[in-house]
């Protein structure tokens, strides 16, 4: 018996030498470590934030002083942050449906018909995705001042819509392109009017794409800083509030608390959205939902 023969292990049907097995295990360990590292980089800072939000000290540094919830209580006594949160939510609630409508209209208009102006229209719709947000913000500011329109939540909303509905168009158009038109033909053949086709066949089947777009648009709008910063008047949004608080005061633990809360809510909403999309996926048999959400 040679040493090699003794070293052989049976793995499934293959005979794999022990050295390969060791290499495989090492590979798996290395990969796991790598993934953990990435996880730490992406989520570590956040977790630290959460820890400090319960820390009983004005200084955000080690060592930890003790558990407290007073920073959370402070939130409710600070009118500015409540106002900022409210504004962010209101803007997002208005911007989202507008984006869905405009985005879907554009998606249908671009992907369903062939006409001469199609390329320029598609280019125009895609343009905001190429221009940096900084410039959209600055441009918006100059634009409104030139027109003597005072800056306000409205101006924020308008510039946000313009920046984000093209992405909705991209998502919905991607779904529409894959849409099986024979389903629409079958519906018409069975007696459905154009409107009924839309209502019973098309909308239900693109609903997942619409929902994904809605969630994305809402969270983008809520999180948006750059564009909002330049086109904001006296009212601030949540990101703007955080920014100015950080710039004007050195250690403000209240920011930790509110950040933790907001982050927690976002996680919950996104998780719920994901579960909902899985449920929908199962119902319509549409397997392409997650890649859409992602891309």
């Amino acid at each position, binding site marked *: 018996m040679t040493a090699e023969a003794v070293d052989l292990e049976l793995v499934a049907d293959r005979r794999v030498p022990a050295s390969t097995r060791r290499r495989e295990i090492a590979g798996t360990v290395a990969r796991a470590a790598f993934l953990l590292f990435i996880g730490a980089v992406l989520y570590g800072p956040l977790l630290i934030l959460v820890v400090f939000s319960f820390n009983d000290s004005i200084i955000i540094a080690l060592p930890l002083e003790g558990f407290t919830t007073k920073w959370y209580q402070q939130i409710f006594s600070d009118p500015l942050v409540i106002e900022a949160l409210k504004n962010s939510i209101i803007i997002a609630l208005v911007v989202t449906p507008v984006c869905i409508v405009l985005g879907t209209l554009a998606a249908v208009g671009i992907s369903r018909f062939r006409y001469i102006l199609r390329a320029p229209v598609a280019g125009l719709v895609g343009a905001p995705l190429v221009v940096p947000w900084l410039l959209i913000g600055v441009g918006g500011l100059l634009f409104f001042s030139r027109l003597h329109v005072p800056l306000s939540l409205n101006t924020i909303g308008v510039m946000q819509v313009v920046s984000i509905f093209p992405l909705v168009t991209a998502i919905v158009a991607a779904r529409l392109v894959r849409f099986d038109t024979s389903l629409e033909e079958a519906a018409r053949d069975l*007696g459905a009017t154009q409107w009924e086709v839309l209502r019973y066949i098309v909308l239900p089947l693109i609903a997942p794409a619409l929902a994904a777009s809605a969630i994305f648009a809402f969270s983008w709008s809520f999180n948006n800083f750059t564009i909002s910063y330049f086109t904001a008047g006296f009212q601030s949004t949540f990101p703007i509030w955080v920014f100015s608080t950080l710039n004007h005061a050195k250690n403000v633990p209240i920011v930790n608390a509110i950040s933790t809360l907001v982050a927690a809510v976002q996680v919950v909403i996104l998780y719920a959205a994901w579960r909902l999309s899985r449920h929908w996926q199962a119902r319509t048999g549409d397997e392409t939902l997650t890649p859409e959400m992602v891309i």
Partner: protein
Amino acid sequence: MTGMEEAQVRVGQTQDSDPIARDDTPAILVDRVTKRFGEETVAVNDISFTVGKSEFFSLLGPSGCGKTTTLRMLAGFETPTAGRIVIDGQDAVTLPVHKRNTNLVFQNYALFPHMTIQQNVAFGPERKRLPRKEVQARVAEVLEAVRLPDYASRYPRELSGGQQQRVALARALANRPAVLLLDEPLGALDLKLRENMQFELKRIQREVGISFVYVTHDQGEALTMSDRIAVMNKGKIEHLGAPEEVYLRPKSLFTAGFIGQANLLPGTIETQESSGLGVRLSDGSLLRAETSAEGCEVGEKATLMIRPEHLRLELELPGDVPSIPVRLKDETFQGSWARYAAETREGARIVLLVPSDARPDAGAFDREVWVSCSAEHAYALPGDEDGDVATAEELSPSA
């Protein structure tokens, strides 16, 4: 009897040649319809036909012959460039799709994935605003007819291909259209399932009693199920007639080559008698054809069509039956028959079928043998002007 002829007897075809319709008013009248796409493409070129009230009518032809375009014009998804379509007495060209009294069974079934079978089948009746009880009754009725009564609450993706096919059929039938249009519905099914479904479709058509317009490229299918077949090629109808006529007495070379397997042997018409035509083939053999298509003239070019199963293999030169000297090249065992490829002295290919128990021994390959054909099985067609006489291999699709 060949398989095709057996199938005919099975399903009970009539023997009359070229009936126009069983009833007075046709369910469909297509009058000189042409469809052009853009400047160049003529998909359908001046075709006319009628479909009777309870007729199983097939549009048969290779890909690109215009059969699907024709069907879509009947359904309303395409508008004719010229010509008239009358459906159930109504001029259909001005009718939009959803108002027509036809329903289409799609090739890919087109079942709505987000609805149950029940909802799918109920879709048509619901669009007609029928009362709920009636809708449910109809759904139950058609699901029963396609033998899927317990599947109402399932989703399309849970069903097999054959079952989805039947649901698509049920969904169309639930509307009680005057005419049912079917676009190669059995294409995606395997052989056994296809044969079963052919039976089912024919049975349902007989039971429900409405006209079927059936598009297919499979000539065996068309021969099995149809009352009449329109053989199409390059936008035109080559031959419109009952399956037996199309098979035994095709009107054009294309039809002869497309339907079933055929040997197409070029030659010239030498004599014309009451018992038939004498045709001199290019290798010198003289054969007799009892039947012939229109247009055969003495002295003109002609093509002799003989089905492989009608050629007899003779090891010695037969005295009483016209025959062709050949050399055997290839043998393929096909179960109850053996298929032989042979070559004439001129190099033309001939295919013949020999019953398995009458196969010759290997020695038959080493010398010249003969294939004979009695006059009743030979059929003459006028050869095309441009010498367009295709061989059996070129024209007929795989058996």
